[in-house]
């Protein structure tokens, strides 16, 4: 039986950052998904991080510019 500890918005930002250094555990991934699913603020923030990391990749020459 899976027992999931709810996490805060602040916790999600730590996980989003850590995920750039290491593979998150399946518990962490589940907690992250569950929180973002129900939190509009974190949906906005994770979209922002997505854009940031994608554009950073282009800025650093890792993927082609459009």
């Amino acid at each position, binding site marked *: 039986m899976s027992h999931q500890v709810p996490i*805060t*918005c*602040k*916790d999600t*930002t*730590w996980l*989003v*950052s*850590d995920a*750039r*250094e*290491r593979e998150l555990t399946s518990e962490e991934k589940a907690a992250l998904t569950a929180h973002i699913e129900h939190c*509009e*603020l*974190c*949906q*906005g*923030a994770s*979209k*922002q*991080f997505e*854009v*940031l990391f*994608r*554009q*950073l990749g*282009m*800025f*650093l*020459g890792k993927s*082609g*510019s*459009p």
Partner: protein
Amino acid sequence: MNHSDTSNIVDEIATLRDALFHLALLQLRNKSEAEDATQEAILAALESHTGFEHRSSLKTWLISILRFKVLDIIRAKKRLLPVSNMAKLEEELDVTVFDSLFEENGCWSAPKDAWSDPHSHVEQVQFFKILEACLTNLSPTASRAFLMREWLELSPDETCAQIGVSSGNLRVILYRARMQLRHCLDLKWDRNA
């Protein structure tokens, strides 16, 4: 784009010199080292540009050459010993940004604007300018550590050794750098234009 004309490509390499220097400076945070890395990258590019196969843009190709020159400079330097002094580290980190971001219960204190990727070349040039300004605003330690991971792709362990911090401190430095970048872009980028 057609880069087949040799004088064209030499001109284009010259126009990208500033962009290369700025990137090297963000990583190295030392002007003379950044000059050296840029100079060596440009010379290497001029020597081998006939081998440039247009599979990527010229800028991407130059950045990949610069990356190796920057890595050479970093790896030739003596590594710092790990610093266990967290007080010194705190000085380097801009803590003020974080005070207002979250409520005490860990919730974001303000709604987040919906970002979208730049829609045009002009918008992207603008985005990159702001991104560069935001990277420049990071402390030298944060900027070096962040780009070692995101650009040079050093392992977390090697990054710790180069910066001279423990892995716990590195985690904090990188977290704050990413949070600061998001915050800075949120303030400066008018993406709903």
